[in-house]
């Protein structure tokens, strides 16, 4: 299962994002500053944004789902139970999972931001598509819910999962790190080596890596990366 982007360029008013990438099976994190083009790229992969140039090629992908940045956009029913059914899922399964059993008749638009996020993510994840795109899935969630989501994503043992997020602390164990820098999607490689090339790394991680690299202690750097990797994966 492969998703490849060939010389993709998407342009907006005075702004553009470029991508030449190949996503294999596993969990990918696409990170970058706010406004760097992560959502645009997510919608491009979902087929709802047409690039100015370039093409997308997929092999073995028969189903695609996207968890949108604003879950309100995904609401198509007047009740929580109806919303779950609109995904073709059983409310009796999803409602207990999302702790919304007592809100089955409530309008989804009247749920709190976190509740609605939980509901839509549960539905998207339950669909278990070949290509799963998650646009800022951690926003509106508290630490406990972020950790639970990380576990759910890690437990998905098939297909391509691409997380588009500027979250730097609550992340699942990822296979490949990508970063949008100056309007270009750049492959930082696999963890832990990718951490040394991650320009937007959390300050603590960055300080640790830089201090070790300055000391010329490559082995310690690798150990530090492994340690942080295990920290990420345990959160």
């Amino acid at each position, binding site marked *: 299962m492969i998703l490849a982007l060939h010389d993709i360029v998407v342009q907006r008013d005075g702004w553009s994002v470029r991508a030449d990438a190949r996503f294999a099976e596993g969990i990918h994190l696409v990170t970058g500053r706010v406004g760097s083009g992560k959502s645009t790229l997510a919608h491009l992969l979902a087929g*709802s944004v047409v690039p100015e140039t370039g093409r997308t090629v997929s092999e073995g992908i028969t189903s695609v789902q996207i968890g949108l940045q604003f879950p*309100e956009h995904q609401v198509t029913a007047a009740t929580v139970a109806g919303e779950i059914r609109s995904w073709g899922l059983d409310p009796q399964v999803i409602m207990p999972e999302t702790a919304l059993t007592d809100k089955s008749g409530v309008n989804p638009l009247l749920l709190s931001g976190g509740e609605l996020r939980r509901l839509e993510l549960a539905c998207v994840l339950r669909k278990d598509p070949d290509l799963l795109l998650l646009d800022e899935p951690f926003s509106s969630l508290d630490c406990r819910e972020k950790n639970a989501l990380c576990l759910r994503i890690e437990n998905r043992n098939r297909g391509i999962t691409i997380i588009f997020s500027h979250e730097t602390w609550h992340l699942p164990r990822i296979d490949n790190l990508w970063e949008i820098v100056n309007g270009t999607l750049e492959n930082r490689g696999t963890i832990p080596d990718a951490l040394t090339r991650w320009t937007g790394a959390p300050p603590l991680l960055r300080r640790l890596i830089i201090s070790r690299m300055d000391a010329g202690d490559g082995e310690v750097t690798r150990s530090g990366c492994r340690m942080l990797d295990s920290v990420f994966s345990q959160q």
Partner: protein
Amino acid sequence: MQDARLRLLATITLSGAAVSGIPGAGLTFLWWLACTPRWDKVPRRGILVAFLFIVITAVVLQISGGPGISYLVRFSVILLIAAWAYTAFRPGELMDVGVWLFGDGIGFDLGLVGEMSLQSLQVSADDLSRIMTAQRMKGIGWNWRTFAPALATLVHLGLRRADDQAGILAIRGYRKGGTHIPVFPKGKWDRVTTVCALAILCISLLSAQVVVL
């Protein structure tokens, strides 16, 4: 056209010329061809929907013995002018024009309302695009059954943003009016194209009868 005042004047005069009759609509179309970047940046989906409404109205008019063809031509040209004015708009221009025309009191308020409305329109267009993506992912087609929930979501999001904006304005101490210094960039051909627009209106009014629908 850089100067928002001249653009507004041109939009009004050309709309008047186009609505006055077929000759005015023809001249306005020629102006649109010569003086605008045409299809660049035009929101084609929105234009298509608006054009569909014009076509439906024209067909109904024609069937009922009215000037359907004339309506179709005139209002299609007005749609082109409206699309050009919309895409040429830059944030802050309505505030500039409002304050320039009516001062820091009512002009500021009108400018603020205009700016917020246009911003809301642009954000709603993005919302609609996202909603359609979500519906496609659910395997739901775009039809009258899905139109109602999409509209409900759009209204809900619009109201919530309006509430947030009202709260921010209140916290910042806004009651009415405000101070704003309008700035109008000048384009090389702004005056020439505006004079052409005024000339088109004069010629249209002189040469054609005003069509009363």
